[in-house]
C-alpha cells in the first residue's frame, strides 16, 4: 500500500514537471558556423568577376549573378510568406534576380535558430532593445562592412542619422529599421501628427466655436455640452489598456508640451509636472461635473471603437488617428455634418508649445544579415534596392501603368482597377498586389506622394498637426534592462501610475486627489525610483551623444 502511494506520488510529480516543462521549451546547441566574408579585391571586383564596385550605381544593377535564393526570417506570424506571386515581389525578383524563402515564427523559433547555429540569411525582428539586437555583433554582419565591400551606394539611400543611432560600441551598425524617422523627416512636413483633440463639428457649431484652451473655458464648454446634448458623453479618450494611460499620460503631456528632458538632457519627471497635473485636476473636476463616464475606464477596444463610430463622445483626446480613421470614416459617412474635427483644445498654463510625438528614430521592424548568409552581397543589394526611391515606390504603389499612374498634379494614384480590387476584394488585392504590405524597409514619407494615402476623415486632423511634431528620440529605449531589478520595479511603478492616474481623475475631492498622488510618489521611493532614474540618465546621455545633442 505504502509502496503504491509512493509510486503514485512519483507519477504525479512527473505529470506536474511535464506541465511546467512546457513553459521552458527545448534547445540543442552546436558550433556556430561563421563563414568569413569574402572581401572585395583591391581592384573593386566582387567575387571572381561578378561585378566591379561603383559608388554611383547601385550594385544590384551591376551584379551579373543569376538566381540567388536567400532565406529571410520574419519574427511575426502574420507575415505573408509568398514570393513572386504578386506585383511587388515579382518586380523585386525580376530586378534583383533573387528568390526569397520567407520563414516566420516567434521568439521560440528565433531561439532555436540561435541554439542550432543554422541561421537564416536575413533576419527581421521587432524590438531594438531586445537581447537579440543588443548582441547583434556576435551573429550579424556590420552593414558598413557589407556596404564597403559590395555596395557603397547603400550609404546614399540609408539615413546617416539612423545608422549612427543604431551603431553599437564598435561604431558599426548591424541592423537597419523600417519607419525610422529622423530629425530631417520631422522637419520636412512629410510625416503627420497622429494626436489630436477632436470635437464633433455639429456640437462645435452649436456652441458657437468656443475656445477650450484655458481650464475654465474647458470645463465650461464641457458643461454646456452636457446640458445641450444630454445623449452625448462630453469627453472621451482612447480605451485604457491594463498598464496603459490611454491618451491621458504621455499623449496629453505631449499635447500640452510638457518638457521632455531637463536642459542638460537629464531625466525630466513629466508625470509630476505642475502644468500637467493641473490639467489632470481639471479632468477630475470634469469627472465630478459628470462630463466623463466611468465606462471610459473599463471599455475594451471593441466598445471604444463602437462609441467612436456612433459619435458617442462630443470631444475626444485622441491618439493614433490613422488607426482610428476607419471608425471616424464610418461616423463621418453617416453624419457628414457631425464629423470630428481637430481644434486647439487644452493649452499649457505654463506657456509650453505642443510637442506631438510620432514614430521615433528606432523605427519598427529591424533587419539584419546573419553571418551565415549564403550571399551577403545580394543581401546588402536588397537593402539598397528596398531603401531607394525606386524600391519604396514599388512597395507602396506598385508598377507604373499597372497599379498606379501619376496625375497632373504629380500625385501618385492607384489605377481604377487596383482601387476597385482594394475596395471590393481586399483579400485578393493583398494577395495579388501586396501594395503597402512589403514593409521591412518602409517609410511614411512616401505616403505623402499620394492624396489617397490617408482617409479624408483624418486629413483635417493631420493638417492641424503640421508644425507641432517634436522628436522624442532621446527618450527612446531608455527603460531599464529586462531581467534587472530596476526593470521589475519600473514595471510595478508603471502599473501603479496607471492606477494613480485614473484614481486622480475619479477622486471625490481635492484631499483624495492629493493623497492618491502622494501615495504614488511614496510608492516610487519604495521601489528603487532613484536607481531607475540613474539608469535612464545613463541611457539618455548615450542617446544624446548618438544624436549629437
Amino acid at each position, binding site marked *: 500500500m505504502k509502496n503504491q502511494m509512493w509510486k503514485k506520488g512519483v507519477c504525479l510529480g512527473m505529470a*506536474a514537471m511535464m*506541465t511546467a*516543462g512546457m513553459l*521552458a*521549451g527545448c534547445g540543442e546547441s552546436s558550433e556556430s558556423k561563421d563563414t568569413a566574408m569574402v572581401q572585395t579585391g583591391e581592384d573593386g571586383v566582387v567575387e571572381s568577376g561578378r561585378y566591379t564596385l561603383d559608388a554611383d550605381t547601385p550594385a544590384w544593377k551591376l551584379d551579373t549573378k543569376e538566381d540567388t535564393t536567400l532565406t529571410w526570417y520574419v519574427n511575426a506570424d502574420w507575415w505573408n510568406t509568398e514570393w513572386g506571386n504578386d506585383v511587388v515581389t515579382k518586380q523585386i525578383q525580376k530586378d534583383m534576380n533573387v528568390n526569397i524563402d520567407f520563414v516566420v515564427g516567434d521568439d521560440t523559433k528565433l*531561439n532555436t535558430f540561435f541554439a542550432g547555429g543554422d541561421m537564416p540569411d536575413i533576419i527581421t525582428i521587432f524590438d531594438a532593445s531586445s537581447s*537579440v539586437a543588443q548582441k547583434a555583433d556576435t551573429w550579424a554582419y556590420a552593414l558598413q562592412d557589407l556596404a564597403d565591400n559590395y555596395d557603397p551606394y547603400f550609404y546614399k539611400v540609408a539615413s546617416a542619422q539612423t545608422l549612427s543611432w543604431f551603431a553599437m560600441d564598435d561604431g558599426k551598425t548591424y541592423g537597419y529599421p523600417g519607419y525610422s524617422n529622423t530629425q530631417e523627416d520631422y522637419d520636412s512636413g512629410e510625416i503627420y501628427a497622429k494626436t489630436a483633440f477632436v470635437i464633433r463639428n455639429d456640437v462645435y457649431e452649436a456652441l458657437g466655436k468656443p475656445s477650450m484652451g484655458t481650464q475654465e473655458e474647458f470645463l465650461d464648454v464641457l458643461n454646456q455640452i452636457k446640458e445641450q446634448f444630454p445623449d452625448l458623453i462630453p469627453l472621451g479618450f482612447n480605451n485604457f489598456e*491594463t498598464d496603459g494611460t490611454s491618451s491621458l499620460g504621455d499623449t496629453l503631456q505631449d499635447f500640452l508640451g510638457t518638457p521632455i528632458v531637463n536642459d542638460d538632457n537629464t531625466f525630466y519627471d513629466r508625470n509630476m509636472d505642475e502644468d500637467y497635473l493641473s490639467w489632470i485636476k481639471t479632468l477630475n473636476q470634469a469627472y465630478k461635473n459628470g462630463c466623463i463616464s466611468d465606462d471610459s475606464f473599463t471599455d475594451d477596444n471593441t466598445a471604444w471603437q463602437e462609441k467612436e463610430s456612433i459619435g458617442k463622445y462630443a470631444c475626444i483626446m485622441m491618439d493614433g488617428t490613422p488607426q482610428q480613421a476607419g471608425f471616424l470614416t464610418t461616423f463621418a459617412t453617416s453624419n457628414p455634418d457631425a464629423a470630428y474635427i481637430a481644434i486647439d483644445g487644452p493649452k499649457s498654463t505654463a506657456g509650453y508649445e505642443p510637442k506631438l510625438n510620432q514614430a521615433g528614430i528606432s523605427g519598427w521592424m529591424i533587419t539584419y544579415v546573419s553571418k551565415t548568409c549564403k550571399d551577403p552581397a545580394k543581401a546588402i543589394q536588397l537593402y539598397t534596392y528596398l531603401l531607394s526611391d525606386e524600391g519604396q515606390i514599388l512597395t507602396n504603389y506598385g508598377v507604373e501603368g499597372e497599379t498606379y499612374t501619376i496625375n497632373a498634379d504629380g500625385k501618385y494614384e492607384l489605377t481604377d482597377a487596383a482601387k476597385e480590387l482594394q475596395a471590393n476584394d481586399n483579400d485578393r488585392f493583398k494577395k495579388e498586389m501586396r501594395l503597402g504590405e512589403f514593409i521591412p524597409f518602409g517609410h511614411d514619407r512616401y505616403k505623402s506622394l499620394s492624396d489617397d494615402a490617408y482617409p479624408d476623415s483624418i486629413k483635417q486632423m493631420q493638417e492641424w498637426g503640421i508644425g507641432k511634431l517634436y522628436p522624442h528620440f532621446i527618450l527612446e529605449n531608455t527603460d531599464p534592462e529586462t531581467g534587472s531589478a530596476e526593470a521589475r520595479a519600473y*514595471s510595478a511603478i508603471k502599473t501603479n501610475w496607471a492606477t494613480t492616474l485614473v484614481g486622480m481623475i475619479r477622486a471625490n475631492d481635492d484631499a483624495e486627489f492629493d493623497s492618491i498622488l502622494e501615495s504614488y510618489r511614496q510608492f516610487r521611493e519604495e521601489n528603487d525610483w532613484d536607481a531607475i532614474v540613474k539608469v535612464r540618465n545613463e541611457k539618455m546621455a548615450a542617446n544624446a551623444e548618438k544624436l549629437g545633442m
Partner: protein
Amino acid sequence: MKNKEKKKKQSLVEKAKLFVKDYRRQLPLQMMVIPGIIFMIIFCYMPIYGLTIAFKSYTVIDTIDSAKWVGWANFKIVATDKYFWQSVINTLGISFLKLLIGFTTPIILSIMIYELRDGPFKRIIQTISYLPHFLSWIVLGGMIINWLSTTGLLNQILMAVGLVDNPTNFLLDSGKYWWIASLSDTWKEAGWGTVLYLATMAGIDPTYYEAARIDGAGRLRQITSITLPLMKTIISLNFILTISGLLKSNLDQTLVLMNSQNQAKAEVIDSYVYRMGMTQGDFSYATAVGLGVSVVSVILLVTANKITGKINEESVL
C-alpha cells in the same frame, strides 16, 4: 545461503524470459504503444530539461546550455517580490470562492436537472446552461464589461427595482472583483460541469429509487440517501482535481476583465507570469515561478487525495 541466491537469480532469468515471451506474443499490441511513448518522451519528458533555465540567467540568444548558472537567485527574487505574493493572494481568494460556488453549483444543478421529467423543457434547460461554455472569454469578457458598465444590464435592473439610485461601474470597484471573477466563471462553466454528474446519475440503478419510494422516501430523502452517496467517487475526484488547481487561475478571464483600477485585486499568478515572461522577456524568472507553482500544486494534489482517501476509505487516484 548460496542456494537461495542461485534460486533468486534463476527466478530473475525466468522472469526475464517470461517477459520476452509475453512481449513477443503481444507484439502487435505493444507496437501500437510505442508511438505514444515516443511522443511522450519528445514532447513531455525532454522539455523537462528546459526547466534548468529557472536556475540560470537566460535570454533569447542563449542556448539552455550556454546560459549562466545563477543558483537560487531567481527563486530568491520570486520569494521577495511582493507583487508576486499579491498575485498569490488574489489567486487563492478567487480560487476559494470558485471552490465554494463553482464546485457546488454544478452538483446542485445536475440534481435539479436529473429530477426533471424527461422532455423538451429538460433539454432546453440543458442546452441553455451549456451554451456559455462554448463562448471564449474574449467574447464573453466584452459582454460582461458591457453588462457591468454604468449603462449596462445590471445597473438597469438594479435601478428598475429601486435598489440603487446612481449607476456605478462595478469593474472599477476592486473590492468586488473576486466576486465578479468567480461568479462569472461559475455562470460560464456550471452547465458544462453537470455533464459528468448527469452521466454518473444515468448509471444509477432505478430499482434503488423504486425500493425507496415503496419504503416511503420522499424526493429529498431519495437525493440524500441514494443519488449523493452513489456520486461520492466522482464528486471526490472532481474535488481533488479542483484542489490541485487552486493555484491555477483563468488567464483569459483575468486579461479581459482586469483594468487599472482593479488590477491590485485582479492580478493572478498566471497573468503575472505572463507579464513577466512574455511581455517583459524575463524567461528565467517566469520559469522559476512556474516550477514553484507546479511543486505546490503537486503537494496540494497529494494532500487532497489523502484527505478524501481518509474520508472515503479509498483514495481516488
